[in-house]
C-alpha cells in the first residue's frame, strides 16, 4: 500500500527521463510486476534522495546495490571504507579478516544477523571473510548501539554493533517466485556459483533458499624484502573449498504478527596462508576446516495498545579442525579439534506510553559450551543472563535514549577452577537534537565490557582465574547535515563525530606461565574523528555522479605504564589517518566506480619507531575499479560486472609478515527469473 502511494507522488514530481534513471539504478531483486490496471512497473523507492540511516548514535550503512561500488566480495570488503573501521586482513582467499572500530579491538564488535548475534565464545572475534554477500540486503555499523529499543538485550551489550540484514522475499501472487542465479570467477582460480530461490506460498507464508559454493586455489605472487633486495615468492597451499546452504521461512499474520525460522550450514576447507618468514620456503600445509550450523527463529507481535513483543531463539554448533604438518614436536604435526555450542533465548517487550515516550525491557539467556582435544581441557560452560531496561523519549526537537544493562555471567568447568561469577551494570545515554531540518547534533556515552574468551582462559597451560572482563567507555559528539538540493547537485550528506574512548583491564597475552598467559594488564585511551561526505549529482544526458568520502582520524594510545617508554604510543594496527574515496558515474544500465583507500603508516608492536624500515608497516594506497551493466536478456534482468582489486598492483601488508595480493580481477554474471 505504502509503496504504491509513494510511487504516485514520485511519478507526479518526475519527468519521464528521471523515471528511467531511477529504474536503472535499482537492484534487480527489487523489481516486481505491479498488480495495478496500468501494468506499470512498481518500483521500490531507492531514490536519489539522501538516505541517512535513522539513528541517534553515529551509524553507517551499505546496501546490496552499493556492494559493486566498493568491489566487495565479502562483508569485510563491504565495510572497509567506513569511517573508524580498521580491517585486519591476513590476505589470500582463505585468510582471516577481523574488524576493529575506533581502536577498541575486534572483541568489542558484535556481529548480528537479522538482529541475532553471531558469537564466537572461543575467539571473541568474528572472521568476516566467512560471510558472503549473496543473501545480504544491507549492512549497518552502529557505534554504541542501534536506536530501536525493542531489541534483544544483546544489541545493548557491545561497544559497536555490526548488523547484517538478509534478503527477505517480497513477492506477490502474480509473480510468486524469484530465482537469482549467478556465478563469479576470477583471479586465484576463483569459481563461485550461487543460487537464490524466493517463493511465495500464500499471502502469509513465503520462503527463501540460498545455495553458495566457492572454490579457489588462492595462489598469488608477492614480494618480501630481505634488507637489500625484493624476493618474489608465491602463496601456495592456500586454496579454499566452501559450501553454504541457507534457508528461511517467513510467516506474516493478518494481525501484523510475524514469524521467521532460518537454518544455515557453512562448510569450509581452507589452506591457511601462513606468516612469510625470511630465508625459509613459503609457508604451506596449515589447514583449517569449519563446519558451522545455526538455526534461529523469531516471533513478533504488536497490539493496538502500543505493546510489542519479540521472542527469539537460536542454536549454533561450530566445529573447527586445525592441522599443522610442520610443528616440531616428536609426532611431527599438530592436530586440534574444537567444538562450540550456543543455546540462545531472548524475549523483549516494548510499550509505547505516549507518542513521544517508549519503554522496553529485554532479557536474553545465552549458554556457551566448548570442547577441544587439548591436553587436560576444562570443557567450560558459560551462562550469560542479560537484562536491559531501555527508554526512548522525544521532547520537541530533542530525542533522548537511555538504557541500563545488567549482565550476569557464570562460568563452570569440569576440572579445576575458573573465574568467579560476574555481575555488571552497564549504562548508556544517547541524545540527539534537531537544530533545523538538515542539521542534527547528537552525543552518546556508553559503558560496556567484553568477557574473557574461552581461548584466553582455557587454551593455555594454566587458567588465570583472576581474569576480569575488559571495559570500554565511549564518549561521542557529532552532527549530521543532510540536505536534498534542487538543481544538479541532488543531495549532500555530511556526518562528523569526535570521540574519546577508554579501555581498562585490556587483556593481553604475556608470557607468564604460572598466572596463565592472558592478563588484564593494559589500558588504552583514544581520541578520534569520523567524517563522512556523500553526494550525488546529475551530470546531464542521463549521467549521474556519486561520491562518498570517509575519513578517520584515530589516535589510540597505550597508557598502561606511565613510567614506560611506550606510554602514549599509538596502538598496533591502528593507522592515524584513513581516507576512503569512492566515486562513480552511472547512466541507464551502466555504472563505473572507483574506490581509493589511503592508510597512513601503522605500527605492529608496542614500539613507535620509524628509524629502520622494519620498525613499522608502510603507508599504502589501495585502488579498486568496477564496471557493471544491468540489462535484460529475453525480458529477464541480467547483470554483468567486472571488478579489479588493487588496480595499481601495489605491494602492501596489513598484518606484519602476511603480504597481500597484487592486482586481481573478478567477473560476475547474474540472471533473475
Amino acid at each position, binding site marked *: 500500500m505504502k509503496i504504491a502511494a509513494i510511487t504516485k507522488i514520485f511519478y507526479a514530481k518526475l519527468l519521464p527521463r528521471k523515471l528511467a534513471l531511477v529504474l536503472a539504478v535499482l537492484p534487480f531483486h527489487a523489481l516486481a510486476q505491479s498488480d495495478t490496471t496500468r501494468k506499470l512497473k512498481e518500483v521500490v523507492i531507492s531514490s536519489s534522495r539522501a538516505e541517512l540511516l535513522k539513528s541517534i548514535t553515529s551509524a553507517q550503512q551499505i546496501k546490496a546495490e552499493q556492494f559493486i561500488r566498493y568491489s566487495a566480495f565479502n562483508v569485510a570488503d563491504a565495510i572497509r571504507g567506513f569511517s573508524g573501521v580498521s580491517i585486519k586482513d591476513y590476505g589470500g582467499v582463505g585468510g582471516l579478516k577481523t574488524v576493529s572500530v575506533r581502536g577498541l579491538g575486534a572483541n568489542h564488535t558484535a556481529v548480528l544477523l537479522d538482529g541475532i548475534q553471531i558469537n564466537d565464545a572461543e575467539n571473541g572475534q568474528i*572472521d568476516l571473510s566467512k560471510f558472503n554477500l549473496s543473501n545480504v540486503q544491507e549492512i549497518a555499523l552502529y557505534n554504541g548501539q542501534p536506536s530501536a529499543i525493542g531489541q534483544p538485550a544483546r544489541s545493548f551489550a557491545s561497544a559497536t554493533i555490526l548488523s547484517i540484514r538478509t534478503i527477505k522475499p517480497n513477492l506477490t501472487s502474480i509473480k510468486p517466485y524469484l530465482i537469482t542465479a549467478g556465478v563469479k570467477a576470477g583471479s586465484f582460480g576463483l569459481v563461485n556459483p550461487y543460487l537464490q530461490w524466493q517463493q511465495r506460498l500464500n499471502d502469509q507464508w513465503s520462503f527463501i533458499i540460498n545455495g553458495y559454493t566457492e572454490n579457489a586455489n588462492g595462489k598469488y605472487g608477492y614480494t618480501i624484502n630481505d634488507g637489500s633486495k625484493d624476493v618474489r615468492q608465491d602463496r601456495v597451499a592456500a586454496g579454499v573449498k566452501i559450501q553454504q546452504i541457507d534457508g528461511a521461512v517467513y510467516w506474516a499474520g493478518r494481525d501484523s504478527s510475524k514469524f521467521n525460522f532460518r537454518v544455515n550450514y557453512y562448510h569450509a576447507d581452507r589452506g591457511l596462508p601462513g606468516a612469510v618468514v*625470511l630465508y625459509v620456503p613459503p609457508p604451506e600445509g596449515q589447514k583449517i576446516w569449519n563446519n558451522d550450523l545455526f538455526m534461529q527463529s523469531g516471533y513478533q507481535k504488536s497490539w493496538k495498545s502500543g505493546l510489542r513483543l519479540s521472542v527469539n531463539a537460536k542454536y549454533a554448533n561450530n566445529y573447527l579442525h586445525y592441522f599443522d604438518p610442520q610443528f616440531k614436536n*616428536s609426532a611431527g604435526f599438530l592436530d586440534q579439534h574444537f567444538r562450540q555450542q550456543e543455546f540462545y533465548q531472548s524475549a523483549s517487550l516494548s510499550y509505547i506510553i505516549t507518542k513521544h515516550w517508549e519503554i522496553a525491557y529485554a532479557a536474553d539467556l545465552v549458554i556457551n559450551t566448548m570442547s577441544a582435544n587439548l591436553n587436560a581441557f576444562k570443557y567450560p560452560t558459560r551462562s550469560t543472563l542479560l537484562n536491559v531496561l531501555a527508554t526512548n523519549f522525544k521532547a520537541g526537537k530533542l530525542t533522548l535514549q537511555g538504557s541500563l544493562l545488567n549482565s550476569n555471567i557464570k562460568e563452570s568447568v569440569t576440572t579445576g577452577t575458573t573465574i568467579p561469577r560476574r555481575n555488571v551494570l552497564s549504562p548508556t545515554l544517547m541524545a540527539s537534537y534537531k537544530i533545523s531540518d538538515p542539521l542534527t547534533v547528537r552525543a552518546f556515552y556508553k559503558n560496556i565490557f567484553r568477557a574473557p574468551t574461552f581461548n584466553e582462559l582455557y587454551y593455555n597451560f594454566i587458567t588465570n582465574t583472576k581474569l576480569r572482563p575488559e571495559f570500554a567507555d565511549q564518549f561521542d559528539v557529532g552532527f549530521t547535515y543532510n540536505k536534498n538540493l534542487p538543481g544538479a547537485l541532488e543531495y549532500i550528506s555530511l556526518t562528523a563525530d569526535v570521540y574519546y574512548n577508554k579501555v581498562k583491564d585490556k587483556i593481553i597475552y604475556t608470557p607468564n*606461565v604460572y598466572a596463565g598467559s592472558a592478563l588484564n594488564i593494559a589500558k588504552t585511551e583514544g581520541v578520534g574523528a569520523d567524517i563522512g561526505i556523500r553526494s550525488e549529482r546529475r551530470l546531464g544526458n542521463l549521467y549521474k555522479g556519486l561520491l562518498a568520502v570517509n575519513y578517520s582520524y584515530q589516535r589510540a594510545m597505550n597508557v598502561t605504564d606511565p613510567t614506560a617508554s611506550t606510554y602514549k604510543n599509538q596502538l598496533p594496527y591502528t593507522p592515524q589517518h584513513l581516507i576512503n574515496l569512492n566515486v562513480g558515474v552511472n547512466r541507464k544500465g551502466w555504472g563505473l566506480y572507483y574506490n581509493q583507500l589511503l592508510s597512513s603508516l601503522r605500527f605492529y608492536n608496542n614500539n613507535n619507531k620509524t628509524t629502520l624500515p622494519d620498525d613499522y608497516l608502510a603507508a599504502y594506497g589501495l585502488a579498486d575499479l568496477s564496471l557493471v551493466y544491468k540489462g535484460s536478456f529475453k525480458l529477464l534482468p541480467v547483470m554483468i560486472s567486472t571488478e579489479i582489486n588493487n588496480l595499481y598492483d601495489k605491494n602492501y601488508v596489513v598484518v*606484519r609478515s602476511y603480504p597481500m595480493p597484487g592486482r586481481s580481477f573478478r567477473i560476475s554474471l547474474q540472471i533473475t527469473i
Partner: protein
Amino acid sequence: MKQFKLKYLLVTLSFVSILAACSKNDPAPGPDGGSSNQTAGVYILNQGNFNQNNSTLSYYDYSAKTLTADRYLTANSTKLGDTGNDLGIYGTKMYIVVNNSNLVNITRASTAKLTKQLTISQPRYLAFYRNYAFVSSYNGTVSVIDTTSLTITKTITVGRSPEQMTVANGKLYVANSGGLDYPDLDKTLSVIDLTTLTEIKKITVTTNPITITSDRYNNVYVLSVGNYGGDATHPAVSAGLTVVNALTDEVRSQTNVNLGYNIPIMAQGDFVYYPTADNKIAMYNARTQSLERANFIVDGTVITSPYAFAFDTTTGQLFIADAKDYSSDGTLYAFSATGQKLSSIITGINPGRIALLNK
C-alpha cells in the same frame, strides 16, 4: 582463529626456553685467536617477535660510545631473519643462531660481517669446545660444526626439544626440555663425550629443563620450569634448580625454586645468578652450594622481565637485559659487582643474549 592460538602457543614455548648469557669466568679461548684484556663493545641479540622477521643485533661501542640499532644489517645489508635465539663469540668469529629462519650465521666478531651461513632446522642454542661449535635443534639433535672448515661434521641425537648446553669436565651437557611434546615433557640431560662426540648417558633432572650453566668447580646447574601445575595424568612438578656433579655425573641437589617466567642463568666466578618469581636476581654460592643472597641488586632497581645475563671481566660489571613488555624495545642495565645500577642502554625487542667483544 587458529593463527592466533598457534602463534601464542609457539611464542609461549619459545619464551619458556629463555636465553641466558652463559659466560664463564675465563675469556673465551679459541684456536683462531688469543684473548685480550680489553672490551671493545657489547653485542645484544634481540629476538624480535616470532614470525615477524624483526630480529636485530644491537652493538654498543665502548670507546666511541655509540649505539647501533642493527649492526648485522649495517654490515651485511641483509636482515638477520626471524627470532635470533643465541649468540656466541668464539675466537675471531661470532655465531648467530636464527631459530625461525633455520640459519646459523657465522660472522666476523669485530664487524658482524657474514662469513658463512649454515642451514639447520629450528636451531636453538650454542656451545663451544676446542675446535667444535655445537648447535642444538628442536628436531632432537645437536649439530657439530668444525670451526676451521665451518661445516657440519656430525649430528648427535639427544633427547626431545633440546635447549641450552654447557661444557664441563670434557663433556657436553644438553638440557632436553620436551617442551613441544607438552604434556609429555622431558626431564633429562644428555651427556655427550667430547672425544667420541657421542651421547654416553642421560641424567634425570627436574621436569622441563631449559637453561644450563657450569662453574669452575665442575658443577652443572640446570633450571627447569616444571609441568605448569600438572593435570589428571601428570602429578604437578614444581620449577627448580638441579645441581649435577660433572666429575661423577650424579645429581648433587634438586631444590624447588619459585621461578618466574624467564629463567636465564649465568655462572660467574664463585656465584651463579638467576631470576626468581618475585623479580629478584638470586645469587647462589657455588663454593658453599647455598643461596648467598636473595637479591643481587641492592639499590632497589626492579627488572621487569629479566631476559639475559652477561659479565664484563675487564670492568667487573654485570649486565642484565630487561625485555619489559615483550613487544617493545628492552633495556640493558649495567650493575657494579656489588649490585648497584650504573648505567643502561636501549636494546631491540626481547634482548635474549649478550656477548662481549674483546679488543
